[in-house]
């Protein structure tokens, strides 16, 4: 991937991180763990974008949070709320539609 397309790629990927978070956090997770999980699944994100994003989604009622103090290091665990699930559903459906639309564009070419 050449650097010349970085801006366009970034533009296209904006928003997919939200969907990935909503899907991954159906199983409760904490900040750094989620960062690693996203990275492992090809949604590499900067820590300084992800941490504020989690709080924003929580404020919008799409995530719920709970402090887990069982371990030596207390961590804040996030989990996708019912509203978050609905949003994930809508976003996934839209993504599929977009994929079909893009495919039909490339079909025309041939």
């Amino acid at each position, binding site marked *: 991937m050449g650097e010349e397309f970085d801006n366009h790629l970034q533009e296209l990927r904006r928003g997919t991180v939200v969907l990935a978070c909503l899907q991954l956090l159906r199983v409760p997770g*904490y*900040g*750094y*763990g989620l960062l*690693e999980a996203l990275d492992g699944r090809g949604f590499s994100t*900067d*820590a*300084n*974008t992800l*941490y*504020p*994003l989690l*709080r*924003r989604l929580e404020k919008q009622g799409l995530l719920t949070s709970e*402090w887990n103090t069982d371990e030596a*290091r*207390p*961590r*804040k665990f996030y989990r996708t709320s019912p509203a978050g699930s609905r949003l994930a559903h809508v976003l996934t459906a839209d993504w599929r539609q977009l994929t079909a639309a893009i495919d039909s564009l490339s079909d025309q070419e041939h």
Partner: protein
Amino acid sequence: MTATLTQRYIAATVHSLPPSSQDDVRAELSASIADAVEARIENGEPPEAAERSALNELGDPALLAAGFADRPLHLIGPRYYPTWWRLLKLLLAIVPACVLGAVALGQALAGEGPGQIIGQSIAAALSTALHLCFWVTLVFVILERTGAGLPDWTVDNLPEAPESASGRVNLIASLAFLGLAAGALTWDRSAGFVRIAGETVPVLNPSLWPWWMTGLLALLAAEAAFAVVLFARRRWSAALAVANTAIAVLFASLALTLLGRGQLVNPEFVVLIVERTGSSDLPRILGVLVAFSVAAIGVWDVVDGWLKARRAAPS
């Protein structure tokens, strides 16, 4: 000791957040940083280097805090920028020039010397421009942060088409005004605006006739011809702007020269004013006012012509 950098980083991030969320962000952020440092140490980095690089990766705490608090990272965003820029340009084009003229007029009326007049009026215009920039920007920065709405743009906000500036109405207005001016000049000499005890006292110096007055009337005729040519051409051009400038400069220099030499106004009329009002200062003040008006109108005329020519130029 290794904790200090992290503590400083967290303090720098948290201090600008609302108090209600500070403790929560502090606890979460320290866990996240500890996790990141731990992962780096497991990968074989020495502890101190691991802490440094983990914090470097998080970046500027102010940026992170803006993300947590959902604050904009710009002074004026795209929603307000065009309005801000339009308003600022409009105000900067009008207000400092008015202040310059007003302060210069005030200083001249107070009888100050030319150095004082120029210095004071330029300083006032500059500080006005500075204040305009600051306060207008401040208002928009506040708007940006309070989210107050602006009316939506519609086609009614489009600027006027440049052609409308050279239409029929302008021709008629110019010709009517020039005709009135020429009529007033001759009327002042023949019938007189001012009559004292049945005797006519011309306002303008009678010794200006015939040569100076012929020149003045010729300039009025040139203005009329210019208005007709402008109407026929339908739009301004650089050549027309040059002609307009020449006429305006000639007129202003003629009027100001006569005024400066004290030849423009009838000496009898001056004596009359002083006698009637008992104020020996009044003729001087009137003279300054007239000189300023002549200069201001001339400058406006020239600038206006060039602006219209530039707007009409095919780009």
